């Protein structure tokens, strides 16, 4: 049963990922990513990481992706020419990436870490549920937690700085985009 779900989710994830990369129109890419994220959430659940899965759905598939859609809508998602201006980039890119993948797999499969061949140890109930993770966040990882909140603030400021309308740099023509 678990295996079935895993494979379904895995296929979903891979498919989503490939979609992101392959689809011409950025708008569709975004949608593909959403699909990808959902299947990841499923995998997280399999790994008894309920809270992470939830966050994944809410934060990503919710907030972030919406933002994406807006921007794509704003700037308009024209496709890109098929021919790659950089000679051999596409071929090399795929080649190197696959080599990388093989290397990583080798590293993982060849590892002496026995636990990897298991489904992992028995974990207490409530492993990875909001309460547990939340406590961890507020006890051991208080500082990263706070820091990341500040980071969010900074990012927000940055977005404003970059995207704010200034008189002199006001573009004349209006918005253009699909939807």
């Amino acid at each position: 049963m678990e295996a079935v779900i895993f494979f379904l989710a895995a296929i979903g994830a891979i498919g989503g990922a490939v979609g992101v990369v392959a689809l011409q129109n950025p708008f569709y890419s975004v949608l593909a990513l959403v699909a990808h994220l959902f299947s990841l959430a499923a995998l997280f659940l399999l790994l008894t990481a309920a809270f992470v899965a939830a966050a994944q759905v809410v934060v990503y598939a919710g907030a972030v992706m919406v933002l994406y859609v807006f921007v794509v809508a704003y700037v308009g998602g024209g496709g890109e020419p098929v021919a790659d201006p950089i000679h051999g980039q596409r071929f090399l890119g795929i080649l190197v990436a696959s080599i990388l993948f093989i290397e990583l797999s080798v590293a993982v499969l060849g590892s002496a870490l026995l636990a990897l061949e298991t489904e992992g140890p028995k974990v207490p109930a409530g492993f990875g549920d909001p309460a547990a993770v939340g406590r961890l966040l507020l006890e051991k990882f208080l500082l990263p937690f706070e820091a990341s909140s500040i980071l969010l603030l900074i990012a927000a400021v940055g977005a404003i700085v970059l995207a704010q309308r200034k008189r002199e740099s006001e573009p004349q023509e209006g918005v253009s985009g699909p939807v």
Partner: protein
Amino acid sequence: MSATSWAWLVLLFPLVGSIAIALSFKAIPSKAAGLIGTAAIGAAFICGIAALVCLLGEDPEARHHASSLWDYASVAGLDIKLGIYVDPLSVFMVLVVTGVSTLIHLYSYGYMQSDEGYHRFFSYLNFFVFSMLLLVLAGNFVLLIVGWAFVGFASYALISFWYRRKTATKAGMKAFVINVVGDIGLVLAAFLIFREIGSFDYGTVFEKAPQVFHTNEWTVVAICLLLLVGAFAKSAQLPFHTWLPDAMEGPTPVSSLIHAATMVTAGVYLIARTHTLFVLAPTAADIAAFVGLATLLVAGTIALVMTDLKRAIAYSTMSQIGYMIMGVSIGAYSAGMFHLMTHAFFKALLFMAAGSIISAMANKQNIDEMSGFGKAMRFTSITFVCGALALAAFPGTSGFFSKDEILAYAHARGGMYDIFQILGYFGALLTAIYSFRLVFRVLPGKPCKEAQELIDTGHLAHETPRNPASGEEEDTDVGFPGAHHHIAEQSPGMKIAMGVLAFLALFAGLVQVPGVDETITHFLDPVFADSPLAEIVPSVGASWVGLAIGAAISLVGIGIAYWLYIVRPETPAALIRRFGWLHTFLYNKWYFDELIDVLIVRPALAIGRFANRFFERFVVDGLVTGTEETVRGASGVVRAVQNGFVRSYALLLIVGFAGLVLYFLIVQS
């Protein structure tokens, strides 16, 4: 005062004179400079005599003294002191040098009168005398080398005295470089001596040498050969002689002092001085003797055909020195030195006379254009004849005794040394012929234009002087005596000098007449006492036989000359036509210059050109530019990769990433 302190004074005077004249340059009138110069040398001569007296006062065995002022440069086991060595030999040389120099200074006092470079001339001349005295008085090999090189420089300076003459500067350079080669020979000899004996000091060396070396051991032979290089270079022996004829570019007094009387005989002195070593290296000694022989013959033949008055005399000088070298090498030490002395007299004289004539010729030196000076310049011609007689070993003259004594000794030594006697006599024949060739070409006959002018108007040709070698006009404002050049035999100083020398040329031989008196032999004996060869003495009878033969030969020679140039003046031309090839061969001086040019000069220049054109550009700079190019190329690559495409940056990043991972995976297994 002891002999050594006198010797120091001998050195001091010329040096002071030279420096004084140099510094007082333009400050004092030229006459004063001349006087100072002459006086300085005169003083040196007197001190020399004083030293002689001191020496004679001692018993013959003790007649050698060393004295040194300060450590010149002696550390790390090298003993180089500023020291002199006084013994009969050096004193003998001192007397010859200072004596002749005094006269020549006197001569130059008049001769150079109208020359712009008067101060310079006397400063140089004094410096030369100082150097020559340093050479003969030096107490160790290093100081010897110093003196040796100094005279070399002095001769350079005086050869290119008229430095606006390209020919003169070239000749000077040639002389200097060849002499430096000689110096190098001496330096190497000194090193080898030091290696074997551990000292540069004459005393130590000559004392230890017999124990250190066994006869003809290669080291001592090598030492002697190296010394010979020095000696030959200085004394213009084959194959280092080519500089001497060119040296005639210098003012005539210079030719007469340096290139006839004193410096060129340094080689003879050197061999005599180091006879201890040569005795241990008979091979080297014989080589020296043969070179001397060869030189005297070759030079003699060339002198037969030279048309340039001074050069002709120069070649005769070479051949006379050949006699001396031969003499001292085979062991006729005192005879060699004796000939050295007499030669100094008559050759100096010949040059003075020649100079006088040449100045009368407005600097033309070609004997083909000369004739009839017998009438025009009586005094000069007389002295000229005296010199020629002595040179031709006319019976009774000084040259007669000295030359024949050498040959007699060769005979007395016997064996293969008879060759030296026989060929020596042949050389004597040549000598007689060429010396009187000059006499008969220049003095008698109907006066040439200049001579005629002299007879008629009583003063000299007023043409603008030209360089006899290149024919270009002398620029007279540099110091070359200009048209207003009235000196030929008119200044008393010159007359005195020539007179005295003429007298000596004729009668100096009488101090050493075999069987009658042998002053010089006796005086020098203590020096050569240690040499087994000194034991060999030709019997009085043998000597007289030799003298007889010599007399005959010289008369025959003179006769031939007379027949050729007076009786049948057309024959020489006929002979030249008949033996054209021989004449050209001799006229081109056996092609020695050309030989050296091909063997040494051209290769050196070729190497230089190669180094410049190819090596420096392609190898040395190539090294630089090569690296430079590589780096630049690499820089180009780096900047090409930096192509502005963010995606290719990412690619490189991931490539590097993959590479790193790969490395670690390899490390793991």
